[in-house]
């Protein structure tokens, strides 16, 4: 870029023809086109907001504060109810189960890969984790409904419904493990070796180095990984749609079925709700809640990631 200004922009000394800048219209047009392409990603964000808001505003005008004060959700029934709590309850119950599985397994794997594994093991396992991040969630949904519920939970004698939060949560946890493991391993590897060596020099054992030096030093990256894990769980649709059922439920018994924000959106958007109906608008209202929730979590994660970058670069 520096070079460009020197050739076409003229030199301070005024060396004759070199200093003459000719406007190149072709170049300008290309630049404008590239800018337009870049604007598409910004327009996507604006488009999401506009789509969610234009349909949500009439929804909230009609429903008002009942959205947050009532405890029943049945917008598609003839006597519709619009209390969001059962959906939020299902979302966070299942994500909670998932996180209870994903954080110990994910962080354990990350510490092992970062501090204990030989370079060869790490070189094999890390790409496997990265491929696993890409396994479609509908596959995990199949696994939860067709394997974990009948062959594990019911085989163990746990009285679960066909659709239940436990199976969906456990499988969602397994789905999130590679995400948490991969990001937090990166954070731990970014801790300078000098810190480890200093601790070893003081007589620390491997476990002490891992838990008291590396782990605290990488904590912001680890927190970011966990927040992103939660965010993935909250936004996940297919596992819950297949394995947790569609029943709005305010309970906490994990053997029952629960609807979540995403499952409602997925099941209501089947084309039976004409545009402009309250059922159609409720999809967008749920989308807005989901968008805001995940946006907040992502902002937190980005902030934490920045923090750990600042320390070691």
């Amino acid at each position, binding site marked *: 870029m520096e*070079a*460009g200004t020197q050739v*076409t922009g003229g030199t301070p000394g005024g060396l004759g023809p070199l200093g003459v800048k000719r406007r190149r219209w*072709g*170049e300008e047009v290309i630049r404008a*086109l*590239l800018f*337009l*392409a870049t604007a*598409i*990603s*910004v327009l996507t964000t604006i*488009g*999401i907001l506009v*789509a969610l808001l234009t*349909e949500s505003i009439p929804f909230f005008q009609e429903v008002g504060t009942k959205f947050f004060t009532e405890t029943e959700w049945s917008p598609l029934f003839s006597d519709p109810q619009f209390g969001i709590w059962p959906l939020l309850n299902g979302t966070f119950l299942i994500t909670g189960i998932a996180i209870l599985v994903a954080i*110990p*397994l994910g*962080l*354990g*794997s990350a510490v*092992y890969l970062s501090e204990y594994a030989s370079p060869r093991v790490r070189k094999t396992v890390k790409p496997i984790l990265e491929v696993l991040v*890409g396994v*479609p*969630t*509908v*596959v*995990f949904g*199949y*696994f939860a409904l*067709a*394997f974990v519920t009948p*062959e594990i939970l019911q085989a163990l004698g746990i009285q679960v419904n066909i659709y239940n939060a436990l199976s969906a949560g456990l499988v969602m946890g*397994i789905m999130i493990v*590679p995400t948490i*493991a991969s990001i937090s391993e990166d954070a731990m590897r970014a801790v300078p070796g000098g*810190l480890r060596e200093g*601790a070893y020099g*003081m*007589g620390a*054992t491997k*476990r002490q180095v891992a*838990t008291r*030096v590396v782990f605290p*030093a990488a904590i912001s990256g680890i927190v970011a990984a966990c927040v992103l894990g939660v*965010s993935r769980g909250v*936004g996940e*649709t*297919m596992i819950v*749609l*297949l394995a947790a059922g569609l029943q709005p439920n305010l309970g906490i018994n994990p053997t029952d079925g629960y609807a979540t924000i995403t499952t409602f*959106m997925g099941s209501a*958007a089947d084309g039976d709700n004409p545009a402009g109906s309250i059922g159609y608008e409720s999809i*967008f209202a749920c*989308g807005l809640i*989901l*968008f805001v929730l995940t946006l907040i979590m*992502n902002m937190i994660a*980005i902030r934490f990631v920045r923090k750990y970058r600042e*320390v070691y670069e």
Partner: protein
Amino acid sequence: MTPPPPVEAATVRMPGTQFVRERGNRLKELGFAALLLIALGIALLTLLVLLLDVAIEGAGSLSPEFFTDTPSRVDPSSSGIAPAIMGTIWLMIVCAAFIIPVGVASAIYLEEYANRESRFARFVEVNVQNLAAVPSIVYGVLGLAFLVRGPLSLGNVVMAGGLTLGLLVLPVVIVAGREAIRAVPPSIREGSMALGATRWQTIWKQVLPAAIPGIATGTILALSRAIGETAPLIVVGATAFATTASTGLFDQFSALPIQIFGWTADPQEEFKALAAAAILVLMAILLSMNAIAIWLRNRYEQNW
């Protein structure tokens, strides 16, 4: 720039004593290492069980007819994935035709034209990060509001589905494209410009060819993410029991993940085996795409 507090605590407040007191407890050390290994083991083992279960359940249904038959609501034995595969191919064509030019152009603009420190560049960067974390079903809602109904009103057709997926994975291409372009050393650009090439000539003839392997890798990874997405397609109205294959951009469509969803959700047990077989096909496609991406990355990795 300050060392993290825990290290300070260990070295300054209690010089040595704390570490020494606990040393020699070999059992604790071994136990901890074993726990970590178990964590990794459970995670990998579960995923292995998943793949094995799918393979065992699905292998029996994989026959040549499975690829040429259309899905049936009543008869599992004559059901196949022909419309789903055609739908997926069409979706990927639309998606690729959208993300390659737009993603690469954005990457070029952000790396070669925009001022890195400018507000716009930083805004776009944060925006791309945020877009990557928006739940996929929200993109479905975007497609529903603008492409299927609303301003474009395309209906639930291939074009709407493909563009929705394209918007969803666009950040992947932009990020990969930027990295690939950034990896081309400035000396290449300077050399080209010193010979009198314009900025665009430099980008088109020098920078882009050198960045193509990286861009191709990113694009394949983006498509491999798009090919398995289910939730946005449900929202934009893909059909799980399409009896005819899509033949154009404005046909209704099915897709492999949608077919898997439809069969898995079916209460009739026999359809689960078909779902497993379709998962095997999808996973085979996915793994080959990943393998190609890794091969591309290794084959054309360039050290300037």
